[in-house]
Every structure is written in structure tokens, then in C-alpha cells.
């Protein structure tokens, strides 16, 4: 049985004047999948999401959502999508439950249906006790959960999450991730953008790495790490002269690992055996101020592919 393709993009492009935000990307997302766009700010993730959300017309290429053209069948596409934009745009003048009610009405849902779903969704968002409160004084995490609950009012087939946990404290992020896992388990197709590699690793079955509007790699988090990085990474902070940078001392660890990346404040030695590499460093008479051996992450993949870090 063939998998049902919900989103298909071929050569998808978005330009603003002379600036090309999305530069001809090919993407396919199938039903039940958790798909991610990983990349730094300005990589073109949000522009892509807006096109997929049928709120911004593509400048070029072909885009199909549920087999429909989001430009000519925009309303029909949006009726089947849940949309969590990067910036919360909750209705702050009204209460938590009124937000769900009003939003459900925008979808043309009958009041009785909205009422039933409101109870479920408030429970899901852990906001039942705040249902009569205005939105404005809620915490950032609560607002985010309400935005997600709101976007589920129409039982969407795809939920779009643009930077779902940006700006939240670690605890609020974990609560949110837990909620998103539940949705994933229920079979909701998730499309997520993030510049957090841990979020991508946690939530995405498959992802594309974006940079400057292009896709530079694609695969599962695990396969991306296997393809583009080593098993382990040795992070070293070396004693330097006042004006020196770690890029000036790369030659000191030449040949210790498979390859080395220099950041301003440390060296990353890529190797399958971190402890062995550290011994080799000591054998060369180097005395690092700090040294850590860790597993490779998507951050390393991104660094390898673009020469830059995700969050700067």
C-alpha cells in the first residue's frame, strides 16, 4: 500500500523583491509523519511554513497540500490545517475559552461541536482551570499551549508548528514536547520548524536541514548524524594568548580525529573514540583548560554542512 502524500513541493520558491527567502526546495510529507525544517534564523523556514499554511502565495515552483493548490483552493486547504505561527496571535481581549469558541467559528464549526471540543482541548492544554481568564496575563508557556489547542479545534490533518518552543523556559518546553508527543501518537501529521537541534531530535521522524533558502541535507536525525558526523565529539578549550582565537591553534590537534572544527571559544575534534582522542591530545603535551567527550548531535551536522552554528 502506498503512503498517502499530504504535502508535496517541487522547486518551491519565495522571493521578496530581490531577496530569495526560499530557493527551490523539494519536500514530501506523508500522513502520520513528524517532519522538521531545521536551520538558523533566516534560513527560509518560516517563509516555507507560510506557503504551506496557504497564507502566503509561492513565488515559483509547485506546491500541493492534500493534492490541492493552496492558492486557488486556499480556504479548503486551511480548513484542514492547524496553524501555530511563530508569534502567538491569540485574541488577548477575550478569555481562554472564548478564544477557542471564536476560532472554531472561523472554521464554520457548529457551536455544539466547539463546546465539546473546548473541554477536551482545555484538558489537553492543561488550561481547564484558567478557562474563564483573559489571555493577556497567562505565562508564555500557557499561551503557547493555548495556541496549539486553538489550532486543533478543527481536528486538522496536518499541524504546522513554527518554532513551537522558542522563547520558553526549559520546563515549559518539556511540557510542550510532551503534549506534541501525544498528538504524534494519535497519528496527527506534524510539520515543525526549529533552530533547536534537541527539539528536532526529539520530535522529528525525518527532517531537512535548511540554509540560505536551500535544503542542504535530508534524513532521519540518526541517519543525518551517521552520514555527516562522527560518533563522538571531543570539545577542547585550550589556553590561548590574549588576542588568539581557537581557529589559530587548529594545527595543534591535526590528525587527532577525522576532522576539526574551530569555534571562537573551543575546538571540536570529530572522532569515533573521544577518550582515545583526548589521550592523544595529552600525549602531544597539550593541557586543555576544559575537555568534554560527547555524542554527535544535529548541531554538528549543521556545522559540518555549513561551517556555522545553528544558534549564534
Amino acid at each position, binding site marked *: 500500500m502506498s503512503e498517502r502524500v499530504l504535502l508535496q513541493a517541487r522547486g518551491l520558491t519565495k522571493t*521578496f523583491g530581490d531577496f530569495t527567502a526560499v530557493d527551490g526546495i523539494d519536500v514530501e510529507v506523508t500522513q502520520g509523519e513528524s517532519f522538521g525544517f531545521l536551520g538558523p534564523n533566516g534560513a527560509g523556514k518560516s517563509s516555507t511554513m507560510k506557503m504551506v*499554511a496557504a*497564507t*502566503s*502565495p509561492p513565488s515559483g515552483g509547485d506546491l500541493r497540500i492534500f493534492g490541492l493548490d493552496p492558492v486557488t483552493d*486556499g*480556504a*479548503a486547504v*486551511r*480548513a*484542514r*490545517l492547524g*496553524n501555530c*505561527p511563530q*508569534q502567538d*496571535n*491569540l*485574541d*488577548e*481581549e*477575550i478569555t481562554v475559552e*472564548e478564544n477557542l*469558541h*471564536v*476560532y*472554531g*467559528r*472561523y*472554521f*464554520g*464549526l*457548529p457551536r455544539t*461541536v466547539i463546546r465539546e471540543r473546548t473541554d477536551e482541548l482545555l484538558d489537553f492544554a492543561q488550561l481547564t482551570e484558567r478557562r474563564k481568564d483573559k489571555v493577556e496575563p497567562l505565562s508564555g508557556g500557557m499561551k503557547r499551549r493555548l495556541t496549539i489547542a486553538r489550532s486543533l*479545534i*478543527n*481536528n*486538522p*490533518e496536518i499541524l504546522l508548528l513554527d518554532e513551537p518552543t522558542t522563547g520558553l523556559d526549559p520546563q515549559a518546553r518539556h511540557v510542550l514536547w510532551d503534549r506534541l508527543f501525544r498528538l504524534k501518537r494519535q*497519528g*496527527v501529521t506534524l510539520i515543525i520548524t526549529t533552530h533547536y537541534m534537541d527539539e528536532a531530535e526529539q520530535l522529528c521522524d525525518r527532517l531537512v536541514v535548511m540554509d540560505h533558502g536551500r535544503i542542504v541535507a535530508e534524513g532521519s536525525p540518526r541517519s543525518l548524524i551517521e552520514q555527516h558526523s562522527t560518533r563522538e565529539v571531543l570539545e577542547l578549550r585550550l589556553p590561548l594568548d590574549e588576542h588568539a582565537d581557537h581557529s589559530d591553534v587548529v594545527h595543534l590537534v591535526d590528525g587527532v580525529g577525522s576532522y576539526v572544527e574551530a569555534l571562537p571559544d573551543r575546538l571540536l575534534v570529530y572522532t569515533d573514540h573521544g577518550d582515545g582522542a583526548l589521550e592523544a591530545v595529552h600525549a602531544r603535551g597539550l593541557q586543555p583548560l576544559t575537555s568534554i567527550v560527547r555524542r554527535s548531535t544535529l548541531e554538528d551536522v549543521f556545522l559540518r554542512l555549513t561551517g556555522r552554528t545553528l544558534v549564534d
Partner: protein
Amino acid sequence: MSVSGVLTPGLAMWRTVVERNVVSFRRQWAAFVTGFAEPVFYLFSLGIGVGSLVPFVMTDGGSQVSYAAFVAPAMLASSAMNGAVMDSTFNVFFKLKYARIYDAMLATPLGPRDIAVGEVAWSLIRGGVYALVFYLVALAVGVVESWWSLLAVPAAIFIGLAFSAVGMFATTFMRSWVDFDWIMLVIQPLFLLSATFFPLATYPGWAQPIVMATPLYHGVALERGLMLGEVGWGLLWHVAYLVVLGVVGIWATSRRIETLLRS
């Protein structure tokens, strides 16, 4: 498996925009009152105060009426204008720029035209309520002259339509609250110089065509004809003017929302 939201085809989706405003305004009745107060103050201070110094006024229709009866229809028209303009400018600007209410709406099946029509319809409701309250005040102080005046409140809807559509269109060009001085700069002369406080015949010859080209003049002339019982087919010309302005305004506003929020 998930089931998509039920969408009734042909449903007037703009009504949900009105519904949102009703929900929001349930707790804000105080804000509702402000736009209504000004014309009432003018009716009492100028119409009745100055009116006691002026024995009567010759209308453009050729009849003699008390000054208060002459001014009251103009204040009703201004009341409808105020209600519509306040809502379609200040409130719409806040929703557009700060609260991002329309961004949220456009992520649903609603489109720019639903937003424009919905917001204008809401302004009409607000303008209509102001007109009704003002009409009741005018009735109470005895400055209503004709049974035709029963049509004065429905007629105010046309004034609201024109002003809220154009007001919302203008608002889509506003960059900050400072730009709202321009709105006041337009509204004040319209309020004072649309044959509101003096008959058109008292304006200098060169100014009369200018006055006749402006929207509030048509609203005032329409209301005055109805409230003073000077009724003729000519009143439909005023209605037509206001309706055309309203329809063009809604169309242009939809286009602007599309450009601003769907780039």
C-alpha cells in the same frame, strides 16, 4: 483518523468576524458610549442653546424650522459617522498591527473579503446603535418633525457603511498612531462644514460644490429630509452616493488586506 472541520458551503463567513467582536465587546460597553456623547452635547449646546437666540432657519428645502430641529438630523448623521469611523480606524488598526487578529483569521478559511465585510458590518451595528440612541434623545426633546423620521435610523446605516468602509481602507495605510491625526483632520471639517450647522445656501457659491461632493453632506441631507419631512426622489441620490462609497471601500479594503497580510 482525523476528520476535517465541517464547512457549510455558501455560509456567510463574515458573520463570524462580527461574532468575534460581539464576544469581545460584551465586557467593554463603556467604550461604546464615547462615540455617541459628542453629537448629543452639540445638540444641547448649539441646537438648543444657540437655537434659543435664533428664531428659525430656512432649510435648503424651503421650509422654516427651529434651529434645534435643523441641527438634530445633522447630529444624527454625525453620530452614525463617529460610530463607524471610531470602530473602523482605531479598533481596526489595533487588530491589524498589534493584536494580529487578522493574521489569525487568515490562517482559517476566512479570507480578506470576509474580514472587510465583517468589520464594516460590525461598524454598521455600532453606528446604528448610536443613531438609534440619538434619535430617541431627539424625540424626547421634541425636535423631530415628521413621521418620515422613522426611517432616519435605517438611513443612518448607509452613512455608517460609507464611513466605515472608507475609514478601514484609510487605516490600512496607517503606520503608527501618529497618523491618526490625519483622520481627525478630515473628520473635524466634515463635522463642522457639511451643511451641518448652516444651510447649504449660506455657504459662498464657490464652496457649495465642494461641500456637495463630501460624504457627510449626503448623510446630513438624507437625514434632514427624513426628519423634517422634506421627502423626494432626490433623497435616493444621497443613498446611492453612500452605497457606492461603501461598496468601493470594502472592495479596496479587501485588496489592501490581501497585500498587507498575504505577501
